[in-house]
């Protein structure tokens, strides 16, 4: 992008480079490497043991189920609200746009508390009525999905909005003036132009959804084999001195998250999401 005149390399260049490398190695690379090493300490034993523990298997299945639901909800909501925010004018738009970011900076514990106050079975505001209607949210899977959707809500939106702004509305208007319906316009014009940003947002949401801990801990009740997700079982196994299982489950979660991130970073075309 910027014209790269290779600057002369001074002692300062090497000092800065060295400092950054050492800092990142001590803070991130070495500790992460150690967890991987501990996972494979006895060969594949830890992973095999974890996979034959029904509680771990259940937790992993629940986590994937919840994450997929949360991501689907956030994708539909995210695409819809991004189109509204970028392509439409309505009163209160800036306020909404500011509030959309809120879930990213709210503490997970506060999220859990908020959902409990709204959907708790005994003294939540909507909880009792919903339970009478046969829908239990707190301490059940729907609550975990809500908490997960909450914490990852803005990720898709924050990826799509800048791209939508950049491509502008002209092609969409042209399509419409040529008689395309709104669904057709979306599918043929809008979607192709935002597909990389959307994919990136989906992967970020997925990584966040698989890893949510605090909010889920509060709203799920953390019941083994019923509402215990993968991150919750990591905590429990570690505290029960079953560290092999804790490391193995952590490794799996980290592997999925990091792999997804790396794949998309390399898949994504350089900074020109439109391709032209």
């Amino acid at each position, binding site marked *: *992008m*910027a014209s790269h*005149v290779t600057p002369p390399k001074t002692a300062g*260049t090497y000092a*800065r*480079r060295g400092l950054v490398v050492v*800092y990142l190695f001590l*803070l*991130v690379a*070495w500790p*992460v490497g*150690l*967890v991987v090493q501990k996972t494979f300490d006895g060969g594949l034993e830890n992973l095999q043991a974890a996979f034959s523990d029904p509680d771990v298997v259940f937790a992993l299945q629940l986590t994937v189920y919840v994450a997929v639901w949360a991501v689907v909800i956030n994708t539909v*909501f995210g695409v819809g609200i991004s*189109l509204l*925010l*970028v392509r*439409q*004018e*309505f*009163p209160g738009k800036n306020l*909404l*746009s*500011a*509030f*959309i*970011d809120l879930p990213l*900076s*709210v*503490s*997970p*514990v*506060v*999220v859990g*508390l*908020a959902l*409990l*106050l*709204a959907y708790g079975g005994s003294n939540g*505001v909507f909880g009792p009525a919903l339970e009478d209607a046969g829908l239990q949210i707190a301490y059940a899977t729907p609550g975990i999905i809500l908490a997960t959707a*909450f914490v990852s809500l803005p990720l898709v939106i924050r990826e799509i*909005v*800048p791209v939508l*702004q950049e491509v502008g509305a002209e092609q969409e208007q042209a399509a419409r003036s040529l008689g395309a319906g709104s669904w057709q316009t979306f599918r043929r014009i809008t979607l192709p132009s935002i597909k990389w940003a959307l994919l*990136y947002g989906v992967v970020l949401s997925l*990584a966040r959804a698989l*890893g949510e*801990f*605090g909010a889920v*801990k*509060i709203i799920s009740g953390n019941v083994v084999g019923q509402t215990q997700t993968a*991150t919750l079982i990591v*905590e429990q196994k570690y505290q029960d001195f079953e560290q092999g299982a*804790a490391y193995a489950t*952590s490794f799996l979660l*980290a592997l999925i*998250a*990091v792999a*997804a*991130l790396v794949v998309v970073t390399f898949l994504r075309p350089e900074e020109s999401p439109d391709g032209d």
Partner: protein
Amino acid sequence: MTTEILAPPTPTPTGRRGRGRARTNTLTRQSGLGLGLALTWFSLLVLIPLALIVIQAADGGWATFRDTLTDDQTFDALRLTVEQSLLVTVVNVVMGTLIAWVLVRDRFWGKRLLEVIIDIPFALPTIVAGLVLLSLYGPRSPIGIDVSNTERAVFLALLFVTLPFVVRTVQPVLLELDPEVEQAAASLGASQLTTVRRIILPALAPAITAGAALSFARGISEYGSLVLLSGNLPHTSEVASVRILTYIENGNEAAAASVAVLLLLVALAAILALQLVNRWVARRG
């Protein structure tokens, strides 16, 4: 990835309407319906539950609020949280800017790997982040450094989870910065220090501020990475979010809401700061 999180909040270039802040309504019936649905979902999921925290805290009255916050253990937890978050933010401002600088201006083998390493704290589940740090800085540390169950554990955990914020906000701005301006300054006799102080830092200041705000807000609200590492000892290594959890577990929702309201205010302040910085940048640039 935070670059996108920092994207300015949608002053839209949708054509001729732009001038004169006309708040016209362009909703058709179809998109109006969509907006209604989206707002309903957003309210049910986010706005109403968060509002209930404020209501719950207000319900308890001023007395509960005051009693909760002046409780020794809660006060210590809040102080520890704020202190460590500030400290971490300062380190991030320095190291984050330096990392961004090296990533943009330096070229060496393995730089791409560093880029991935910086995103790892975002991608790792927080509980795993705690476990990861415990492996090098815990009781069985191979280098003999054990920070577990102390306030240093809080510092370390926050440093880990907030690593990407300043880096990822400063990096794109630095990419846009033209090295020729610096060369011009140097050729006019400015020393390296003067160039940094007069040319580079002013250009980066908004991005650094934004990154610092994000980093501080994240530090204040952190929970997962601390659970295994800090031991949650009252008065020593217990942070605000752990306090809230204890109140919830004891069924004291009013007290939990009191502390939660404070955290919520910090979150709102951080968002406000971001919006202001974004507007300011948009106006200048």
